[in-house]
């Protein structure tokens, strides 16, 4: 029951599912739809059971991303709270107009008389064997769009909590999941708790030698790197920022001021990635650093399908460890 706080052992995908069940129960104006999300329960099983429980508020759609997103804008304007799925973030590019030119404008242009309380769930990133059209990390595109909230949970608890927050938010929110996380290890997830406010960062590991800011599935690799570094005597502070809009600049600046070294790690391509924004904010805040800030991401290249090639590009914990080590020993 959504009203009772309880702890359950859930994988990331199950946590998303639990949040959707709760949201559909507590917010009668929610709708859940997208390609294969209804009867089949989603290609990753994340929307399983929703249609059975909530009937025609959950449904499958044609392969029509413009219609999915556009109808979500229209339904949201009229008081519904649609939660739509874009199966891969890459596919949003066939219909980006509806997010950027439509959803993001509704409130502002109407002077607040209309709003578009819709949630777009998608997932992104590279996975073994995935081709160039199924591997991109596109959060930076959405983060350049005023009017759109963006969140990227990486743990089961955040997958649950932040989706609940997103759907309760009265603005369009993009929730970027990652298919490599869905069937990861189960964790104790507190479900049924209060709706948390938007925003906020998480100190996943405290440290004093260097601040590593990160988000998304790569957070796990950053934490592994931090453990490896700790064994060498380097204590990294790992700051995960699942909320990218709003972004907790203060938390980052505060940590960087303490450690006086900054690394930003994301899976997205480096140039034009949101890592640039983080570095620019810290630089703009005049934080004195002991060494130039470092951005770690996928180099500026398309993603090859062969795992052996992709592995040479997507940052792993060994590369993160090495680059942070080099920075600290600088």
């Amino acid at each position, binding site marked *: 029951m959504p009203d009772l706080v309880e702890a359950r052992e859930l994988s990331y995908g199950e946590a998303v599912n639990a949040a959707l069940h709760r949201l559909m129960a507590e917010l009668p*104006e929610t*709708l859940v739809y997208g390609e294969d999300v209804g009867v089949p329960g989603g290609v990753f099983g994340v929307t399983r059971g929703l249609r059975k429980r909530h009937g*025609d*508020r959950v*449904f499958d*759609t*044609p392969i*029509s*991303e*413009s*219609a999915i*997103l*556009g*109808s*979500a*804008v*229209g*339904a*949201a*304007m*009229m*008081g*519904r709270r*649609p939660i739509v799925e874009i199966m891969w973030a890459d596919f949003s590019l*066939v*219909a980006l*107009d*509806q997010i950027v*030119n*439509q959803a993001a*404008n509704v*409130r*502002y*242009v*109407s*002077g*607040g*008389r*209309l*709003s578009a309380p819709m949630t777009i769930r998608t997932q992104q990133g590279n996975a073994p064997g995935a081709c160039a059209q199924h591997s991109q990390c596109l959060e930076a595109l959405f983060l350049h769009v*005023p*009017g759109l*909230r963006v969140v990227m949970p990486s743990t089961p608890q955040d997958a649950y909590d932040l989706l609940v927050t997103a759907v309760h*938010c*009265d*603005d369009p929110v993009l929730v970027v999941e990652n298919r490599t996380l869905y069937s990861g290890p189960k964790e104790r997830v507190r479900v049924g708790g209060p709706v948390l406010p938007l925003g906020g960062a998480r100190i996943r590991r405290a440290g004093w030698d260097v601040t590593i800011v990160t988000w998304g599935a790569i957070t796990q690799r950053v934490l592994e790197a931090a453990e490896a570094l700790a064994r060498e005597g380097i204590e990294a502070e790992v700051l995960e920022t699942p909320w990218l809009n709003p972004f907790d600049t203060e938390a980052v600046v505060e940590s960087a001021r303490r450690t006086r070294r900054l690394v930003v790690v994301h899976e997205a391509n480096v140039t034009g990635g949101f890592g640039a924004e983080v570095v620019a904010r810290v630089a703009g805040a005049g934080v004195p650093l002991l060494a130039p800030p470092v951005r770690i991401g996928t180099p500026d290249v398309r993603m090859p399908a062969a795992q052996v090639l992709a592995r040479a590009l997507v940052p792993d914990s060994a590369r993160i460890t090495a680059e942070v080590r080099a920075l600290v020993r600088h």
Partner: protein
Amino acid sequence: MSERRLADLLTMWRIRAFEEKVRDLRAEGPIVGSVHLCVGQEAIPAGACDVLEPQDALFATYRGHGWALARGVPAEPLFAELMGRATGVNGGRGGSAYFTAAEYGFHGENSIVGAGAPIACGAALAGRFDGSNRAAVTVFGDGAMNQGAVHEAMNFAAAFALPVLFICENNRYSELTPIRDMVRAPRLADRAAAYGMPGHRIDGNDAEAVRFHVRDALEVAREGGGPTLLECMTERLVGHYIGDAETYRQPGELDRIGRREPIVRLREGLLADGVPASAVDAVEGAARAEMERAATSALAAPPADPATAREHLYA
């Protein structure tokens, strides 16, 4: 009967007078930027809005002034919007090509060709769950029929039997390019069959014909029969936007169009029916007077306050 036709004439004259005043204000300076007038196309909003219910949602394009007026949005805040005044329907944020006035059931213009069609599907979908029995109307041009989003919307609405009315204002041009050169099958209404929905090509310069078909389609839609496509044949008497040199016109084209444009036609029809010329022409006078007054008040309103420019981005 002639009463309803006089009412149509008034709606059309209000739109025509509004647009002509806008053209003047654009020339004189108070209105700046790109403006798309619907002069010549007035019969479509006049006929359609007459049979919409308050709960219905209407989505228009940048060529939407006439639709807003016909839907009941008062002229003054529209003028004010176009002039960037604080009293504009969106306080100047929307402008000529992208304003909304949801409180009047006018759910917005749109400046992206075809983008309103999927949004209208969503408004109709919402009506399934909120008990409103809402229908949604989306208006777009002939050129928009070639945009992917419109196709997706038509299939979406048809597959789910959503109460959506797709109104295509076929004014024969997409900006500066004749639609006949951009399609192989020029009867756009026939595309409806692809989606399993009815499609009709109708006389868009006859408000009565528009009313009939819109009412009929809405009835079907509200009873769960799904969407309809209406291709309303019309012509604009003016350029695509103010400033368009209209070099694409054929010799004699504007004359031909002028003879069959909806206001001239309706006026002649009323006179032929024995309505006195004074009564018919009083309509024009009333409409022009209203628009003069509205424009004057709008002109007197304060400009939008730059200090508010960052407000209302987020909840």
